């Protein structure tokens, strides 16, 4: 079975801190904008860092105010992103409902509807018993799945992966696995993550947030910028897409994932497990490293992550490293954790669609091994494939190879 021809992408959509849809986010990214600003949606007073990349919640057309008030912030990010992807793939009917009554979901998130879990605990501790059921019932990830299914009109199996920051790439890779194995003909794959107090304070406690700009692959990098967002892809077998006359907009050619057992929060400094994930993805795609034109790096701008990534890239690409263009879009949209892999996949697909490469922003003094390959404004894609990689707490590594339609 030729995996390069089997798994195709027929639509995508996203909500990011740079915009409420994919075209707006991509345009801002190409203008080298950053969404960094004061965090207002959650309480952060007292934290060492109080800035991040907050998304503007898109209006949910046709949904009552009462219904909107019931949705978690995560659902308010996920529903419009999924709706865009489904509209792009032309699998919504005139009423904005799925044309498939059963549609498999492959989903990633790490914090679910955490703000409701936090509210439940606060109310319990303060002796306020009102609406406890509403709060706790909106917290788990399966409730955001229920929101997606209810608002977009479908049901079916849902796999919710929570492999920390690599989850998004895992969700897309899992969707491809389902399609290749014949478990499904079409899958809605995506990830969502809303800013929440617990996670923000957690990264702040680790002193992993840069008090200034997030500077991926810079010698003076000091940490990440947290963000939020959601992104979804409609993925199908090529036979299914052709049968329904869908426009094929990209292909997932390869997926690789490995587990790094070096440390719970730090990657193996040699980058060997990440290298393994990239090699597997390239092998499945049947591509050589020299055929990769753009690499959307994980690039959190923490000391350990970027060092390990640079080491892995240097070994995978060897003498071809100078010919690949690399950037971390987290400098612009922040680290969106469970949504990172899916948002970055959307940017990789936009790169293939437009031929434009998102520039690396904020990095003025790059790591020597990557100095020649960090993307600059105006860089164009000159090779047939793009690579997107993610690493996560707990040692999750994942790599996705995309090719054009």
């Amino acid at each position, binding site marked *: 079975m030729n995996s390069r021809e089997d798994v195709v992408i027929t639509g995508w959509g996203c909500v990011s801190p740079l915009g409420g849809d994919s075209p707006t986010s991509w345009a801002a990214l190409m203008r080298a904008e950053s969404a960094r600003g004061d965090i207002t949606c959650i309480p*952060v007073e007292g*934290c060492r860092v109080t800035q991040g990349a907050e998304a503007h919640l898109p209006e949910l057309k046709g949904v009552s105010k009462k219904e909107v008030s019931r949705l978690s912030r995560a659902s308010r990010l996920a529903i419009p992103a999924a709706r865009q992807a489904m509209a792009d793939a032309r699998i919504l009917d005139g009423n904005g409902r799925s044309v498939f009554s*059963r549609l498999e979901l492959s989903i990633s998130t790490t914090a679910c509807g955490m703000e409701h879990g936090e509210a439940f605990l606060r109310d319990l501790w303060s002796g306020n018993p009102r609406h406890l059921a509403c709060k706790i019932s909106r917290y788990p990830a*399966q409730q955001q799945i229920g929101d997606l299914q209810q608002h977009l009109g479908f049901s079916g199996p849902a796999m919710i992966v929570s*492999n920390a920051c690599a989850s998004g790439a895992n969700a897309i890779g899992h969707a491809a696995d389902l399609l290749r194995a014949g478990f499904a003909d079409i899958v809605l794959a995506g990830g969502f993550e809303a800013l929440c*107090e617990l996670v923000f*304070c*957690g990264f702040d406690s680790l*002193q992993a947030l840069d008090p200034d700009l997030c500077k991926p692959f810079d010698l003076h990098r000091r940490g990440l910028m947290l963000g939020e967002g959601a992104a979804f892809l409609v993925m199908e077998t090529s036979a299914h897409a052709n049968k329904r006359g869908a426009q094929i907009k990209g292909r997932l050619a390869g997926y690789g994932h490995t587990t790094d057992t070096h440390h719970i929060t730090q990657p193996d400094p040699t980058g060997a497990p990440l290298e393994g994930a990239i090699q597997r993805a390239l092998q499945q795609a049947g591509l050589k490293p020299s055929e990769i034109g753009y690499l959307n790096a994980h690039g959190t701008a923490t000391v350990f992550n970027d060092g390990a990534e640079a080491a892995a890239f240097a070994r995978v690409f060897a003498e071809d490293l100078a010919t690949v263009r690399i950037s971390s879009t987290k400098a612009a949209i922040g680290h969106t954790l469970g949504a990172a892999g899916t948002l970055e996949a959307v940017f990789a697909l936009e790169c293939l669609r437009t031929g434009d490469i998102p520039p690396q922003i904020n990095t003025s003094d790059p790591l020597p091994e990557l100095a020649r390959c960090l993307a600059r404004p105006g860089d164009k894609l000159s090779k047939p494939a793009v690579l997107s990689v993610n690493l996560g707490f707990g040692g999750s590594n994942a790599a996705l190879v995309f090719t054009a339609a």
Partner: protein
Amino acid sequence: MKNPVSILSFGISCPGGTSPEALKDFSKWPFESVPESGGRRLHEVARINLSAEPVNRWRLKPRLRRASPLSHHLIEAIAQTLEARPDINPERVGVVGAFFFGCLEYSVRFYKGLSNDGRRFASPILFPETVVNTPLSHVVAELGIGGPVYSQVGDTSCWVSALRTACLWIENGDIDHVIVAGAEEFEPHLLAAFHSLRWFTAGHPFRIAEGAGAVLIGKKTPAAIADITRIADGYTFRTRDQARIAGIECLGEFDMSAPVMDTATSWKSQTAASLLSNRQLVNLSQGLRHDAFTASSAWNIILAARQRHYPRLIVPHWGLSQNIAAVEISRVANI
């Protein structure tokens, strides 16, 4: 799933011990009375004593000294699956973990700390242990497991989603053997959550429990404990009325003459009773039912796989909040 898979070994860590015999009689499980937050009501809860043998063997492992109780439950169950099959190289084994509540104890403690002491004093030691995939990361590092690793979340039925992922990896030839594990830890705030959701019902009492269960699966082989021959997943609901319809659709995927294991707890007991009134209902455990959610899912599969009476048995997984799934277990020919 396209092809059946075989259950090759299993592991259990439950309040009744680590033997599969413990799953047959809940009345022998120790329990304690725990007050709901605010001390208004007492609930009986079955917990694992982590300082007792044999589960205390992980306490001094450097990576697990500060790990959550859930990590300890999980590693005991997964270690047993590997110890039972020394012929299988852990380097060539994948793991899919299923979790309903995750590392609840440390999450609550971390949030309480930053709420009481101020955000600047949030604990950098606790935070990494609150992340959902941390327990499985500890386990694979400690046991030398080298295959793919996923942590999945959802309600009780999430264990079936994890099983489906494992079958997918085997089907695609990614790996020959996969451990499917479910694990939960008890945290007292769960009682208030369950009470507010009306999951404690007078008509269908049950005890909350904690622990882990794991099964090692591989391609179908005669040298197996049992086979998994069919999976039905993705029957979702938002209301209790919808749950009844989802249950009908899910169980309709299976042969109506096959016996069904009685696994429902809480308000789902009523739904299950009405749906299964004309089916052969099989209860493989004695005593007041205990529920450790995804861990119970694994325990029910182990019970169904080990029983010798029925050639086929349908094991429903009644998620309490979103989804219903079911698995068909077939006794292998050589038993």
